[in-house]
């Protein structure tokens, strides 16, 4: 078991190496004039050369990458070209915002999808229409439009929640919730569409199986049939979908944070990518790779545990 986890993490390390290298060399090849951006339009050639020397941009590209990757192994991801803030600190300070929104969105997605999916599988009829409508809405309206519409209705017209900005939970929990509820709702709609359809489908498959009829023949209650037996067996595929959603929400969160002016990875990454702040961009890439490696590993471990056949053997 431990060797398995170590092997997977080792493969993850190789992935970190590949993906960051691709990002590094591609961005370098694009030739963003970082020093010019920093020094401003009136800068002299000497000033620019001095900045390049200070940031190490005058050294060969390969050497720069080796410096970065060796820093990675010592936990040092360098400093932002523009703010000089250490990348690790900058990312750590913004993670709570993005994580708040994503986790809140995942909770909404999970609760609504399970309720809708199970109920639709058990009852069919009108609930199927609800699920299809959510799916169509999420497909038809791009996320930015949904976000704007919600901001307009709830923040600007009804003034129920602030339109923009973020309040940390350490300051005020109700204000924190108010500041992340709209972004989380926008994020969760696409997830609810795919997850509830997935749960409904697997539940219908499970409810049609022989063992369900046999359990019914022993007088087992309908509630136990649905929640204890069918949902339990349907949870494997649903869990995989859920984990994929979790990862993809980090990407979608970048957009939503921008709409709601939340100081998370969205605004941060956006500024960095426009300025050509490579250390920050590599930091974000690294975060994405680690997220993928860790979540995929957890999915495999949990799926194995969910399935008794895989668990025992």
């Amino acid at each position, binding site marked *: 078991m431990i060797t398995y986890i170590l092997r997977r993490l080792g493969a993850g390390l190789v992935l970190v190496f590949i993906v960051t290298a691709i990002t590094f060399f*591609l961005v370098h090849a694009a030739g963003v004039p970082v020093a010019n951006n920093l020094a401003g339009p009136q800068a002299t050639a000497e000033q620019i050369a001095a900045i390049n020397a200070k940031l190490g941009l005058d050294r060969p590209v390969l050497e720069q990458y080796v410096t970065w990757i060796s820093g990675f192994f010592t936990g040092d991801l360098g400093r932002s070209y523009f703010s000089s803030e250490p990348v690790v600190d900058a990312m750590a300070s913004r993670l709570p915002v993005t994580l708040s929104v994503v986790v809140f969105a995942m909770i909404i997605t999970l609760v609504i999808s399970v309720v809708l999916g199970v109920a639709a599988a058990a009852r069919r009829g009108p609930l199927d229409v609800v699920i299809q409508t959510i799916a169509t809405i999420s497909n038809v309206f791009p*996320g930015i439009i949904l976000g704007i519409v919600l901001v307009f209705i709830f923040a600007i017209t009804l003034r129920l929640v602030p339109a923009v900005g973020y309040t940390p939970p350490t300051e005020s929990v109700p204000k924190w919730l108010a500041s992340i509820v709209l972004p989380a709702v926008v994020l969760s709609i696409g997830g609810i569409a795919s997850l509830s359809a997935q749960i409904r489908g697997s539940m219908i498959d499970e409810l049609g199986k022989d063992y369900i009829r046999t359990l019914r023949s022993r*007088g087992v209650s*309908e509630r136990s049939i649905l929640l204890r037996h069918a949902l339990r067996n349907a949870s494997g595929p649903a869990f995989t979908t859920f984990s994929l959603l979790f990862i993809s929400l980090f990407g979608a969160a970048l957009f939503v944070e*921008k709409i709601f002016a939340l100081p998370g990875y969205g605004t941060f990454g*956006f500024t960095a990518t426009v300025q050509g702040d490579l250390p920050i961009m590599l930091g974000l890439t690294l975060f994405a790779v680690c997220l993928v490696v860790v979540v995929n590993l957890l999915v495999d471990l949990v799926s194995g545990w969910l399935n008794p056949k895989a668990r025992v053997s």
Partner: protein
Amino acid sequence: MSTTNELDTVVLAEDLDSPKRAGAFRRLLRNPLGIGALITLTAIIVLGQSAPLFGVHEPAFSSLDAVNAPIGTPEYLLGGDQYGRDILARLLFSINVSLISGAIGAGVSIVIGTVFGLIAGYIGRTTDAVTSWVFNLLMTFPALVLVLVLYPVTGGSYQIMMVIFGIFLAPGTYRLVRNMVVGVRSELYVDAARVAGLSNRRILSRHILFVVRGPIIISVAFLASSAIGIQAGLAFLGLGSTLVPSFGSMTGDAFANIYLHPEQLVWPSLLLALLTGSVILLGNAYRDALAGPQTPVRRKRTAPPLARREGASSAEATTPTAALLSVRNLRVRYPQADGGEKYVVDGVSLDVAPGEVVGLVGESGSGKTQTAFSILGLLPPEAGVEADVLSLAGESLLGVSPKEMRRLRGGVVAYIPQEPMSNLDPSYTVGNQLVEGLLSSMSRREAKRTVLELLERVGIRDPDRVFASYPHQISGGMAQRVLIAGAVASRPKLLIADEPTTALDVTVQAEILDLLRSLQNEFGMGVLMVTHNFGVVADLCDRVVVMRDGRAVETGAVRDIFHHPSEEYTRELVGAILDEETVRTDPAPAPGAPSAKEATR
């Protein structure tokens, strides 16, 4: 923000047959939503192509006079934005940006996904394993993060951004194509093509690509709308050249102006939603058209599954009999695809006396299992059940509430299924699921003791180990013993066994029949034995009901039926027993006396 994995659920669910496709386009045109989407999409495309002909301003031209100009200003029909640019002009010129984005995103995804999907699915083995690994990884990546990070590489060109995004959309197409190819590869006509000496490339492009093109066309809609939405999102964030007008950048500009002029948001949002909406709805309509015309029928709600009395019942029929189970004129009907109904059981009457073993015999499709399930109340919801009399242990099952029926199933009547392995929940231990059925009448500890005793009684040597085992850890014969233990655990008065030995090895079959006989003797249960095997009937039953095409064609004592079958059909069934030796002529053993064979397993 749609994700790539939605594709699978949307498209893979469809079972597509190529012949249906001929009429698909015509059906699409008959669907109001489909034709509406098609007209909207065509109108938007035409508007986009003819944008320069409208005589509007250059989309990037700004004039101080037109800053936030109201709707209807001369030369600025939809007004001006906060930079004094013509909103109508920007709107018209944005259309092509969105269309090109959709085309590039979907195109890249389709080309990459299809090429690798065909190769991996057709060649299989290592090629398949490696490509599937790569695409699975690609699929889990948060595409938007990398699109954002790689923004400098694009030099601000939205076209290159869409190429990158298209690569991240490819896994959805890849999985779709690969899975379909794997399914098609072993089809006979592909084998035939291979035998006929066609090259792999030709088989792939001619035969296999033909089959997968339907789902690919459907997925184009989702891919394109996804790409359009992402391009809009990126432009909304301000990524991309400011010179290129697009719905996203217009929405972004207007959003910054939302407190002053919220109406400026309406136009780009509306057109963007109309565009993605018509693409998606057109895709949906095409999918529905391919699925064929029978889809709406499935939605119909049918009569509740409860048995109910229908028509006047004769005095003879209502007279309560001494029977444990009494069935008169049972009918089971199912709705058909054409909207009509079909009776799969049509007027069956039978009785089971306490302690009597009755065989219900017939070939596959004769309605015997449907008869059994309607007594148990376990037919699927779309089945309709009617009878003049359907009573069990003196209680009528007609119109009984689901709760009451559940109580009867937990105590009075029990069921042994045909296929042992699929009838155990794979996620719970054997003990766990057997105990659950008993909890309504006893404590957990008591239930566990009862189950352990029963496991031993049904001939399991190591009850504690089997109790703690998962279904996949025990053999089929063992699983059938477990199911028998589960059925008799509540001491039912009537046991309904549905072909309890058919799925088992021949040697195990005899042991299971012995076990059933001895349990029947010990508990004095009535048994309704559903089978197609007259050998089993001869071995176990007192009386027999022969069914054919949903009707009971002959009823009588086993010996009479064997020696003087009155129906030709029964004669054929009896004749189907090859081994005449299995026909027993000695009387059944006296109740309470276990047979010699049963002592050990």
